[in-house]
């Protein structure tokens, strides 16, 4: 009985250790002691400005000072929901003005469609080193709202922007990368050339679970009022203009 209890306890401990090992960072074969020094990458998504034209600002901070971070590049793969629109021509002109380096991955897009006729898209943003804080990167993307379906009750609907994928590529093989790297993703090395690099998909902690945006929409309870009043006024005015034409115009052939 006691042996079985010990056996069960041992199995329980083993399972617990395994679980701890799985939920932690991918097993670093070179000594579990290094796990303790892996700090987190903090990612923060903010949306600036008001109205239909917004700016998405993504800030990434490395938890500890890393040498040779200058040799690394950070790429943010942002998933754009159907409710938002990114104008690729605007991105091209911002790139020319050297404000941000971003490119749309999806080919098929319609700038004018409402959200229910649009598809999700992906944007790659090449982050820049933030001058205001050490070991920080930031990325900036202008987004626009699409028109949404009108609602029956609330005058607002929501767009949810999920957290992006964080990709990192270093010229040299930095051991610290193994703390965070989950998988490898192929993506263009820089915006300008077409070479593909193998970027590391990094694990990070996000300040917010996601970003929620409020979009004003029309109210369907107005429909009958709006239709009847609009048609009434347009028919009334067209009748008045018609009467004026008959009164003052000369009809003869």
């Amino acid at each position, binding site marked *: 009985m006691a042996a079985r209890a010990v056996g069960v306890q041992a199995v329980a401990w083993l399972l617990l250790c395994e679980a701890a090992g799985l939920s932690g960072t991918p097993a670093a074969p070179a000594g579990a002691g290094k796990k303790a020094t892996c700090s987190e990458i903090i990612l923060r998504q903010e949306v600036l400005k008001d109205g239909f*034209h917004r700016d998405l600002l993504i800030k990434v901070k490395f938890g500890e000072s890393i040498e040779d971070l200058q040799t690394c590049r950070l790429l943010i793969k942002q998933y754009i929901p159907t409710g938002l629109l990114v104008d690729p021509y605007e991105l091209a002109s911002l790139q020319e003005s050297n404000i941000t380096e971003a490119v749309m991955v999806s080919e098929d897009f319609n700038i004018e469609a409402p959200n229910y006729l649009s598809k999700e898209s992906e944007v790659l943003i090449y982050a820049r080193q933030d001058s205001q804080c050490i070991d920080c990167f930031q990325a900036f993307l202008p987004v626009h709202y699409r028109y949404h379906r009108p609602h029956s009750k609330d005058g607002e609907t929501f767009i949810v922007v999920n957290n992006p994928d964080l990709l990192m590529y270093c010229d040299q093989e930095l051991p610290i990368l193994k703390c965070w790297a989950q998988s490898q993703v192929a993506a263009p090395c820089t915006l300008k050339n077409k070479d593909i690099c193998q970027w590391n998909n990094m694990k990070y902690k996000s300040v917010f679970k996601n970003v929620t945006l409020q979009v*004003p929409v029309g109210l369907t309870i107005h429909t009958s009022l*709006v239709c009847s009043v609009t048609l009434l006024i347009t028919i009334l005015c067209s009748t008045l203009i018609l009467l004026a034409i008959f009164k003052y115009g000369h*009809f003869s052939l």
Partner: protein
Amino acid sequence: MGRALSLRVRPAGVFGAAFVARVALVLYGAFQDRALLVRYTDVDYRVFTDAARLLSQGRSPYLRATYRYTPLLAWLLTPNVHLCEPFGKLLFISCDLLAAWALYRLLLLRGLGRRGACGYCALWLLNPLPMAVSSRGNADALVAALVLAALYLLARGRLACAAVAYGLAVHLKLYPVTYILPIALHLRRGAPRPAPPPAPAPAPRRARASALLRALCSRAVLLFAAVAGLTFCALSLGFYRRYGWEFLEHTYLYHLTRRDIRHNFSPYFYMLYLTAESPWSPALGVAAFLPQLLLLSAASLAYYRDLAFCCFLHTAIFVTFNKVCTSQYFLWYLCLLPLVMPQVRMPWKRAAGLLVLWFVGQALWLAPAYLLEFQGKNTFLFIWLAGLFFFLINCCILIQIISHYKEEPPAERVKCD
């Protein structure tokens, strides 16, 4: 209102000042584009330039999203790519001045003196709206110039040339197609008249309709229709063979079936947005189209004798009752206003009051639209109400113009040179 507009300067002075002002705006625009984040140049101009670049590389201009114009425009702007980017703006400015010149010549033909004609042209030349529109790179001045050239050539009796200009104008922007009925009725006046009708017995409807049809088939009408139709079809067919279905879709079909549910000046905007997915949507679209059709037909039959006034009424009615209306559309009838004004005998106080009212109507729409687009407030109902109010103001102005219009030509009035 007719007497107040004699200027003390010569026509060359006014044209010169207009040219200098426009070039100055283009230069300022280049500066603002570089210095500030908010660009002076319109988005459309970038679209034209990108399409011209694609065309010069031998590819289809329709690869550029939102390019919804004829390939002819991209071809005209290829020097944007090879020479310098402001070339297109300078082209549009030249079209502005060409339109003003056609206005001037038309006013002279109607019997106004040089100073009087110049005074009315100043309403276009020194008006900030066409100045801003052309210097920002919109192509509406091109169509305005072609329409005015067609009217001038018709007044001079050069039917074939007028028909070519008209065909080109319709190819560039579809709205001049509504002028075909008044032009046909106007040209028919030159046809040999039938025997005078007997004493007032109301002719049966079928007899009147067939008389109308026979009258429309005069030689002048057929010549005009044939040449204009040939110009239009030749251009369309040529581009269709080169670019396929995309050309038809973007150049013509998009504008015919355009249902923009995003906010704009039209009184129908909110109605179309709320019913965009409802089964009533096609019926409402037709209901919105019928007043336009009815009014355009009535205006053609009543005023075809004065082609300029008829075309002005056509375009003003078309723009006011359209399902989509943006500020560029105002230019379409603004270019004909100087032609019409000598015969609209309105006290200048009333005219000034109507003008102020028009601007107030626009401002009342722009305020909630700004709150919606740049502050995210739900002002849809206010935008709708402001749109209806602006629509009412436009109708009021139209009725005032119709009621004050006098048909006799200005040559019979005392000239005030």
